[in-house]
């Protein structure tokens, strides 16, 4: 099919379906960030959508990083997935928007991605809500339910 970024164009291969070596460059950068996290506790991230990664590069990077122990699915203004890779502290975060398309994708190098952690403001609001729920429920209602 002509004219599509991710497809092969006969006669002249489209660059997007070839591995370019970028995956190893990104892996090296992740290595530097992980070293900084290990020594200084400094968190960082790489925006994958800002990099000229081909589909093949992306697949290669996924393979190089491998699956880890933790996967979190978030239902926040659309679906999001947070996956730890085989390298502790290296997380692959994918946010999806309308029609479940990828809105942003990044590698976070940190102990726990901040989007997984409950925000203090949300915790305070939740505490208020639970008290309100309790105050609105009579013991009889609670037993009946």
């Amino acid at each position: 099919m002509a004219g599509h970024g991710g497809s092969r164009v006969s006669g002249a291969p489209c660059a997007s379906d070839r591995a370019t070596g970028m995956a190893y460059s990104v892996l090296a950068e992740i290595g530097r960030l992980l070293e900084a996290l290990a020594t200084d506790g400094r968190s960082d991230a790489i925006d994958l959508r800002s990099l000229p990664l081909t589909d093949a590069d992306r697949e290669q990077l996924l393979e190089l990083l491998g699956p880890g122990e933790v996967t979190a699915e978030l239902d926040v203004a659309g679906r999001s997935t947070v996956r730890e890779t085989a390298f502790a502290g290296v997380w692959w975060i994918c946010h999806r928007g309308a029609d479940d398309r990828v809105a942003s994708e990044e590698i976070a190098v940190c102990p726990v991605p901040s989007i997984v952690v409950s925000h203090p403001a949300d915790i305070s609001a939740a505490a208020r809500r639970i008290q309100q729920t309790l105050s609105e429920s009579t013991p009889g209602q609670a037993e009946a339910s």
Partner: protein
Amino acid sequence: MADNNPFDRKPARTLGEALNERGISRRSFLKFASYTASIMALPPAAATAMAEGLAAARRQSVIWLSFQECTGCTESFTRAKAPSIEDLIFDFISLDYHHTLQNASGHLAELAREQAMEENKGEYLVIVDGSVPLKDDGIYSTIAGMTNLQMLEDTVRNAKAVISVGSCAAFGGIPGADPNPTGAVAIDRIITDKPVINLPGCPPIPEVMTGTVAYLLSFDGIPELDHLGRPKAFFGEAIHDRCYRRPFYEKGMFAKSFDDEGARQGWCLFEVGCKGPVTYNACATLKWNGGVSFPIQSGHGCLGCSEPGFWDLGGFYKPLSTGKDGVLKYAAGAAAAGVAIGAASAYAVRSRRKTIMGNATQPVATPDEKEAK
């Protein structure tokens, strides 16, 4: 606005507090900020600061003025298929006046504009689509008995900043095209004492508009702009720089017509008039319709709609190399010789771009002025 305002149009609560009551958590802010930081090429770490800034901000009052326009910019801004991360921007702003979208009409509509201006003095944002006619005292476009010029000046007087959306507001666009019968001019030709951000395009990409508004809200400042007042985050690179067909350009492989073998094979559309090399916009990366495609991917050359005077650049299907000033003869050479000259032509088109921009930023002559010359 004070807390006791009976209309409660701009509550004193922060966005974080207000949206929490609707079950929108801070994770949503962070997700929106990650998405916005990504499309604006901000460092990922900026997302946290952006999310905190948004959560601490008050709902932004926005007055949207529509002048000589086609409503395509509004259509683009409101384009969304399902509740999602992209829609959050509509929770962050209070659209207090918009001809097409507001319920009120007649004098009540104008009352809403005046009320928003009064209640949010110095803090409201004015978004303008469409150019302003100046010829014959501006009689060619009036709203509620006011010329566009009067309404613009009146509304902007106490605004925080102005965003010109679409090429008509940013550069004059189609109303300003030759022979420009109404003497249409861009907004920044009139407003010179307030920050004016230009978001050209016909229409602009929705994410360019929402990203810019989110940036203003989060950081309470103006993003870095280029010499035409456009945010560099979206207009920093030419379509050509990020075009997936560029390898064909570099190899000298060009479609000669829209139904030849080259077109079917997805080769470069330079010779059928693509303006990608001189057009700065994010179409090749953000794309359209939720990232589905963009004109070149759909088989049509770029029209150059985010550049000044795109309507008068000599024809959508004429190659840049046949431009009137002949500066692009090097690009024609690239087409003929194929490989290696691509870089030279890229330099040439950039040089020509400077020429185009230089001309475009000169004061616009009305038909009468042209005649006088």
